[in-house]
């Protein structure tokens, strides 16, 4: 197993009046090359959970293992862990600080101790992967548009060449075009580099389209863990947690109720179209 969480609990503000239990006995195993979607209501503990994967938060109780080793052991090298597990925060554009885009992206590789040359090469590669044109490399990161800043911040993490890429709502506040593009790039990266991706999102549609495994977090606990299609079949329970299945799921269930024999597990528009056309043609041939 690449990452393993054993009985992890986390409480914010221990010993003060404002104790908040954010994670409650989380057990989780993440294998190499997985594409995992993490979904949950606001305040359910998603951001808290992902900060455990690279040792930014220390569990109040329980263990976090990376490649079988406990990361909170006495002499574990947390800094090297952080180069293996890249974490892109919610609204990462707030972390930009350098005078120009290229330098900002080079910050991560520099901290890894690479030479100036290598840093530059890494930065170029990462920036081109996220689709930042070369004439912006010299611009101040503060002069970019919101979406461009987001991409630069993402490149800043990619340039460290992580094996695990964790993204906290990378698409929040992007336009639909930019959203799809970003997610396609991430999927492409996963396919090409074979990295493991964990994607926190509020969009069931995105999860349905990109993730192979879906974690549903509710109130600091893992409520569901499985293939998206399987999880979506519990759409009634999801609704109780303030979530919803993709809209297609609702349409398919409604069609089924009206007597059209469609595949309930369809989650994307494409799958639904195929299933509906098939069902219609079957009905037509039966009718004849």
């Amino acid at each position: 197993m690449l990452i393993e969480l054993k009985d992890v609990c986390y409480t914010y503000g221990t010993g003060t009046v404002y104790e908040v239990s954010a994670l409650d006995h989380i057990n989780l195993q993440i294998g190499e090359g997985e594409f995992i979607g993490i979904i949950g209501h606001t305040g359910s503990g998603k951001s808290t959970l992902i900060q455990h994967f690279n040792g930014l938060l220390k569990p109040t109780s329980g263990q976090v293992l990376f490649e079988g080793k406990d990361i909170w052991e006495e002499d574990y090298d947390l800094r090297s862990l952080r180069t293996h597990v890249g974490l892109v925060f919610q609204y990462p554009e707030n972390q930009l600080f350098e005078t120009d885009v290229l330098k900002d992206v080079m910050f991560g590789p520099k901290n890894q101790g690479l030479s100036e040359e290598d840093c530059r090469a890494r930065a170029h590669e990462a920036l081109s992967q996220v689709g930042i044109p070369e004439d912006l490399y010299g611009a101040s990161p503060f002069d970019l548009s919101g979406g461009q800043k987001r991409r630069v911040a993402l490149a800043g993490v990619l340039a460290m060449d992580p094996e695990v890429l964790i993204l906290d709502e990378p698409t929040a506040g992007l336009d639909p075009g930019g959203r799809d593009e970003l997610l396609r790039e991430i999927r492409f990266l996963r396919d090409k580099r074979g990295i493991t991706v964990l994607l926190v999102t509020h969009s069931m549609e995105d999860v349905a389209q990109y993730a192979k495994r879906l974690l549903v977090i509710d109130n600091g606990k893992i409520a569901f863990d499985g293939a998206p299609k399987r999880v979506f079949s519990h759409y009634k329970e999801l609704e109780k947690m303030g979530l919803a299945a993709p809209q297609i799921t609702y349409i398919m269930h409604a069609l089924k109720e009206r007597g059209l024999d469609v595949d309930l597990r369809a989650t994307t528009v494409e799958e639904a179209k195929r299933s509906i056309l098939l069902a219609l043609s079957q009905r037509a041939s039966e009718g004849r």
Partner: protein
Amino acid sequence: MGEISLGQYYPTNSILHRLDPRVKFIGTIVYIVSLFLVSGPVGYLCAALALFALVLLSKVPFRFILKSMKPIFFILIVTMLFNLFLTPGEELAHFLIFRITREGLVLALRMGIRLALLVMGSSIMTLTTTPNALTDGMERLFSPLKLIKVPVHEISMMMSIALRFIPILTEETDKIKKAQIARGADFDSGGLIKRLKSMIPLLVPLFVSAFRRANDLAMAMEARCYHGGTGRTQMKPLTYAKKDYCAYLITALFLALAIIFRVKGW
């Protein structure tokens, strides 16, 4: 989040929490003044008992009161030592160049007790009053100063905004720090220069965000036609209730007692 994590306010529902902030402010001042009026053991005992009663009334666990002592603990010890060793007078003991005198001992104890009671006494006010209520109360108390053209409202507005921004900025600092650590930044090793340099990735985004927030806030205030204090009324104006007058009475009695102690030298 709102009031959460603001200052050291301890949220619970006690009679002290419900008192008007103006009463608590004046009460605290009176308490501090009394501490400097009395000088005998009886006086300090009374002051300590009064503090104890207030703590019980406030329903704030005692460890939160003690916590307020932490930042001044060092100063307290140093002042006590200075007083202990540097006061001339009748010698009690000495080793090497240090001499302990009777006068020094008395003075050190008196300073220590005074400071401790002072800090704990004022911490009761901050523990039972939200910073917003406190600035509100101060604005009202100082409003007569408007006559001599002191911008009381503006000062109090600035204070509330500053107070409101503290937790926001701490949270922001925490977030940015984590984001840079995730990019391999190292904030706590190396020499002074290296450490100062390592603060750049933290400070630049922090300032950018602080300025952006300040700008947004100014814009939002302007959009709602904020134009300073003139003609402005409050949504929840402070009004005294019966318990506030009672509290004022007790405060006055306490002050009178302190003056008597002073005169009698108890």
